């Protein structure tokens, strides 16, 4: 499955934004222009599809994302996603969308789903999209059979999506498409302001560890529990572990070697009774995880927590990419990937992520001209200043790519520097540079 495009609006300070996804996509802007809101909006839009009605109701009243900029404070949340999927040996283009009203003073008018639609096109056989599902405020209908029309009515509550309801109609001829939308997921890596905390989870001390895990899981959720995930990777997917090791070692040449370790607390004790253990229905696993590292010039190996913040971040960023690849996540987002990473390493890191991720696309937000200079123009979205205080992201025009390169060359700077220079200039004057350069 491949995410082709996402369009959404009525979210925080985002009026409307549309992103066509290539392999590596970047949002560039000065501070406070809404880069994070765009990333959060995509995550929110996809989470809303997956969550149960009760959670949906809470999401429609979630304060941090309700738009309160006066220019868009009445806008409903609208979300549209275009996906390419291969199902039953055919290739489909799927466009799914919905909208809802945020909570309002007038209780009747708020916290309700307004519209929903599913349109599908067989990319080999069809010339145009067919409607598989449509829903208005009080009425919803779906397509019951290949030869029928989209008019079979279905009862729906104001905090329910038809797409979720249809998941229990497993005889529908497009059931796999319904499943694809319900299973949508995005992996996210935030700004990691405190990478030092990433590996402190190696001890059993939080609620998450109250869940008994008696096997190694490589699910996306486990990637946050880095040392455990990396140990599991070495056991369950050694070929991916080798790839992970190769990536990390080339990014961190000061490392001589590293190895994830597991310590079974029960095994270290003198009064263990092997015979009794066999008879138990469940022998509670109590293990701790760490990654032991040997750095050049150090006289002994240490815990990964002794590495610098940037090095720990690299371990994490690469392991999340591997998790996304294993779990076939269609999209992985990185907020300010450049944090704690020196500029000389950014190209290498981009090459590695590009190579690692065959199934997933990447969406980055960045403040770094050093990172931007390596990216294709068609993959950059620029947050442009505007008087309304809205997050407006524009795409550079293809016909202007050459001009941008020439301008950068004339000024003897990189394209990354040029884009930031112009953003700064536009912030303090009525310069219409981006109006000319962008769509």
């Amino acid at each position: 499955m491949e995410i082709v495009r996402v369009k959404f609006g009525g979210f925080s300070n985002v009026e409307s934004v549309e992103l066509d996804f290539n392999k590596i996509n970047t949002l560039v802007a000065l501070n406070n222009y809404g880069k994070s809101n765009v990333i959060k909006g995509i995550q929110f839009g996809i989470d809303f599809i997956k969550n149960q009605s009760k959670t949906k109701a809470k999401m429609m009243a979630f304060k941090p994302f309700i738009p309160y900029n006066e220019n868009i404070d009445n806008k409903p949340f609208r979300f549209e996603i275009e996906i390419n999927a291969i199902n039953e040996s055919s290739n489909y283009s799927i466009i799914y969308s919905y909208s809802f009203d945020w909570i309002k003073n007038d209780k009747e008018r708020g916290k309700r789903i307004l519209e929903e639609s599913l349109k599908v096109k067989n990319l080999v056989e069809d010339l145009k999209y067919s409607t598989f599902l449509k829903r208005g405020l009080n009425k919803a209908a779906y397509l019951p059979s290949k030869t029928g029309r989209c008019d079979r009515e279905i009862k729906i509550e104001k905090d329910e999506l038809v797409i979720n309801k249809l998941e229990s109609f497993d005889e529908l001829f497009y059931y796999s498409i319904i499943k694809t939308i319900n299973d949508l997921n995005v992996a996210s890596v935030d700004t990691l302001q405190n990478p030092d905390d990433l590996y402190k989870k190696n001890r059993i001390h939080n609620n998450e560890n109250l869940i008994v895990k008696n096997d190694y899981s490589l699910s996306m959720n486990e990637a946050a529990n880095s040392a455990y995930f990396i140990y599991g990777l070495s056991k369950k997917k050694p070929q991916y572990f080798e790839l992970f090791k190769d990536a990390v070692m080339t990014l961190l040449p000061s490392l001589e070697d590293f190895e994830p370790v597991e310590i079974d607390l029960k095994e270290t004790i003198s009064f263990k009774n092997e015979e009794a253990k066999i008879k138990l229905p469940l022998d509670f696993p109590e293990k701790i995880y760490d990654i032991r590292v040997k750095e050049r010039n150090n006289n002994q190996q240490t815990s990964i927590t002794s590495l610098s913040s940037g090095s720990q971040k690299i371990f994490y960023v690469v392991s999340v990419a591997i998790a996304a690849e294993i779990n076939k996540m269609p999209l992985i987002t990185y907020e300010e990937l450049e944090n704690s990473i020196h500029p000389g390493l950014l190209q290498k890191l981009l090459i590695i992520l590009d190579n690692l991720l065959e199934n997933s696309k990447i969406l980055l937000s960045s403040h770094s001209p050093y990172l931007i200079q390596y990216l294709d123009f068609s993959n950059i979205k620029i947050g442009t200043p505007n008087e309304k205080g809205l997050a407006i992201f524009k795409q550079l025009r293809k016909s202007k790519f050459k001009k941008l390169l020439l301008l950068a060359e004339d000024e003897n700077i990189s394209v990354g520097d040029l884009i930031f220079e112009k953003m700064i200039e536009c912030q303090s004057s009525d310069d219409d540079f981006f109006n000319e350069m962008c769509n």
Partner: protein
Amino acid sequence: MKDLSKLLVLFVEGDTEAEFYRLLINYYKEKSSKPFPEVKRINLKGIGRFEAKVVSKLKNDILKDKKYKDLEIIVFCCYDTDVFELAKKPPTNWSKVRKGVAELGIKSFYEIKSQKMIEDWFIKDLDGICDFLKIKKPKKVSQEGLKVLKGLFKTSNKIYQKGYYTHKFLEKLDLSKIIKALKGVFDDLERYLNVK
């Protein structure tokens, strides 16, 4: 025996290229029976613009060095003619570099261009690459070296990083095979190394 009349300065674009040219120069040195000049490789890798860097390196590291005062300076810029997707933008303007070098009073300026990328050269010796990766040699591969290398490395659970990967894989390549396949690409270099 040393040729004390000239200094060859080779500008390369990254670690992989630097390693390749180190091995290439050593290869010629071993083959040579005539006086061999000093060769200085300068890796332009980094975050700045290459045009300014070439001129600055020549000005400050070579021309100001008393050691090279009376030597004829010959500059070679070694680069890909094609840019890969994640390359620095804008790409280096080599004619600007040529002009900048001439302004320093250096008359001998040559370009060694990899058509389209240096990886296209590497795959001229697929046996060496597969030997390094400990994988079976594929029967047929594309002409796009970078694509081929990325694929072969992945088969061996490694990531080929253009411009950065060295890790001894170039040592496994049979340079004579590559030089023969490239027919004349290194003619100018060979002439100044006295191995033509």
